């Protein structure tokens, strides 16, 4: 363990920790845009500049390893001035459309602008213009809102191992794009969407479905493969409009295309809405009582006639433990047979 002093506070962190991690350990807030603890430090947004005693110039807390005895100042007039300039520069090249932006209320840039009270801008000038939109069905890419924090590029390479996107061009024209600026064609895990601090990357399924306010968030488990990823359903008007995952879960906040974007089936018009009984070869909608009575009656009949082992049940690997428990209990206790299985083998 090493001890350093941040804003006069003694902080103990393990060897290899960065100054930013140390500051967070001590609950000292340092603004960031390009940092994500799950990714390699990048040092691009420059917001986490801090002054370290003995260093000739401010350095980024996210890239600087903490050292024994280091004295760090996270805020002073000069640092705040630079941070303010950085945010102002970013805003000078950002469409001013928080009014209709999907990300409003959950946007780090908006937050920073608010924090620094930036209404006027000393640096208004040319803005990057990109008319081309991406025709992939999952991810809306609005590069005018991109702050080039590089999180999407890094997550795609470091975490997903796909490298579907990278920086292209230089200087003011720098952009994040798939190779040859084609439409995105990747695993569509949406990891990039999940780390984007602004509205540059958003899920297409969520567009116009509701912003951050008035959304109910429900933590639950992904219904697809056996990984058991923790997901958060964003619900508006009894409809799931978005799926996210928090970084402090077993899946570290990462999801796959099914987990992140595969929720539309829930309110699909094809959903079964009423019990059906086949009458004269055709299904007819009936009420629950009729359906349940009918099923119970037929099962009892068969049980009486052929014995309980003439009945079998298949349970579902997609249902909950409680339901599976009840299902086999039903087969064993109510029907009286061990003819119960599930699809573990398929």
């Amino acid at each position, binding site marked *: 363990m090493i001890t350093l002093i941040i804003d006069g506070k003694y902080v103990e962190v393990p060897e290899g920790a960065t100054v930013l991690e140390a500051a967070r350990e001590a609950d000292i807030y340092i603004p960031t845009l390009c940092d994500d603890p799950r990714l390699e430090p990048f040092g691009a947004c420059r917001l986490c500049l801090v002054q370290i005693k003995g260093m000739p110039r401010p350095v980024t807390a996210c890239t600087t390893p903490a050292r024994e005895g280091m004295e760090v100042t996270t805020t002073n007039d000069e640092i705040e001035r630079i941070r303010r300039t950085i945010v102002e520069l970013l805003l000078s090249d950002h469409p001013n459309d928080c009014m209709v932006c999907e990300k409003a209320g959950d946007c780090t840039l908006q937050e920073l602008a608010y924090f620094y009270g930036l209404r006027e801008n000393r640096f208004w000038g040319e803005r990057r213009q990109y008319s081309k939109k991406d025709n992939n069905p999952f991810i809306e890419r609005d590069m005018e809102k991109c702050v080039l924090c590089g999180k999407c590029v890094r997550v795609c390479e470091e975490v997903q191992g796909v490298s579907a996107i990278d920086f292209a061009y230089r200087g003011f024209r720098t952009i994040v794009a798939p190779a040859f600026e084609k439409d995105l064609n990747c695993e569509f895990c949406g990891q990039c969407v999940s780390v984007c601090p602004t509205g540059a990357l958003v899920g297409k399924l969520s567009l116009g479905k509701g912003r951050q306010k008035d959304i109910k968030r429900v933590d639950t488990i992904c219904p697809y493969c056996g990984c058991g990823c923790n997901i958060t359903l964003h619900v508006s008007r009894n409809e799931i409009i978005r799926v996210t995952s928090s970084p402090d879960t077993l899946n570290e906040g990462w999801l796959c295309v099914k987990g992140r974007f595969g929720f539309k089936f829930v309110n699909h018009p094809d959903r079964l809405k009423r019990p*059906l009984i086949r009458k004269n070869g055709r299904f007819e909608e009936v009420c629950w009582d009729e359906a349940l009575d009918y099923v119970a009656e037929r099962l009892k009949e068969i049980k009486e006639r052929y014995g309980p082992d003439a009945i079998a049940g298949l349970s579902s690997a997609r249902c909950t433990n*409680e339901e599976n428990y009840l299902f086999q209990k039903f087969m064993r206790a109510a029907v009286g047979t061990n003819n119960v*299985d599930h699809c573990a083998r398929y």
Partner: protein
Amino acid sequence: MTNSIQEIEDNDLIFVIGSNTKENHPIVALRMIKAVRRGARLIVADPRRVPLVRFAHLWLQHRPGTDVALLNSMMHVILKEELYDKEFIVMMTEGFNEEFRTNLEEYPPEVGEKITGVPKEKIVQAARMYATAEKAGIYYTMGITQHSHGSDNVFSIANLALMTGNLGKASAGVNPLRGQNNVQGSTDMGCSPNMYPGYQRVDIPAVREKFERLWGVRLSDRIGLTASEMTFEAEAGRLKAMYIMGENPVLSDPDVGHTVKALKALDFLVVQDIFMTETAELADVVLPGACFAEKDGTFTNTERRVQRVRRAVSPPGEAREDSWIIAELSKRMGYEMTYNTIEEVFQEIGMAWPAMAGMTYSRLERGGLQWPCPTTDHPGTRYLFKGGFPRGKARFTVVKYRPPAEEPDEEYPFVLTTGRMLFQYHTGTMTRRVPPIEVVAGEPYVEIHPDDALALGIKEGQKVKVVSRRGEVVVRARVTSRPDRGVVFIPFHYREAAANVLTSSLNLDPLCKIPELKVASVRLEPIE
């Protein structure tokens, strides 16, 4: 899994066999990639160039169904080069005897190469890499189990792990990855013909008596039918009624024609689901259930972690939670189930099975708990068999290589292997109703090696008829070197070209009754 997902990143060596992890367990694959970035070595054994191969240090492209030969051959090398863990074998295992060793004698790398098609140098290299790693973990899925000799495959994997002492410690072990969100839970909960909840056998009187007390009713002592047996019994007219909840065996089971015939032969079929599936279409009664987002409860993931599922939206129309439906039916059958809340069911599970006795909903609130968790102050169990095995010592099993039940011949010269792909899930009831997924992966296909395609005059995107002894499907060709020559692959998600029309339901594993879904013989006929 004997280990936890999180432990993967501390593996020194990861041996993935018969698992297309990057597509089918994407998040587990991310941990593997993370481990590789941190310096772990990765061996992938798969007949196809699955996406994880990109990250692998060594790829063993063995022919479908030759896993035992491959594993035995690796063990042959480990034995010959004395790379096995002598202390572990003496202390923790039994059966590492003459017979076991002599059996391995038959699988020198040369023989391994002949059977599997993997160059012998690579077999030797893999054996050394695996055996010399400090913490080596094996990960597998259906590529291992869905064979007529799936149990043999699993025993071989266990042998390999035992031989090198890679069991019962962190970041090493034998880890089957569960294919569906709660397949682990269904098994845990006793949805098996021979076991009550918690793997307690129905044919042991003391156990049965315990459950009779808990449920207040007399129980049957006869072992029931497995799913595949149900189909046969139905077809034979001995099984009269089925109650299927949330499953679509018509598409997921082998030999679709056989399944449909069997279900049609029933006197009475009840299907409870959220969509009108291919199976529901055959039913007498269809009951509308609720999906995962519409109910409270728990799922148990592949690493035995029990986690909370929470209701976010209400079900459409009059669809009801499945627990309510079961309880209502039970009542009408004369067996009252009274629970005020779903958590009361969970508490009863804890009474039925000590391994979950220590869990409560409030304890599961954040992150869940891994069973065994016997008491309310138990932290759960990250990896199994720490400090010993439940039956005392772990046993080596003598396993001989047996070829797949169906081998290619003149009429059906290709080996068909089936599986999943990233975008679709299982029989597609859910994912095929997600419009963007249909945009990128809306059509079935058959993967075929460019050389084979050339020989048959098949071009990329061309329609191809794939024919087996059971049936035929028409799909578009995807010409790619992902499969080896002589091997073709079809994902099983698509009703319009159900891969399981082609597979056989006859070749069951003798022990687990798992059908051979991974190997079937087919021929390909280009259309137009």
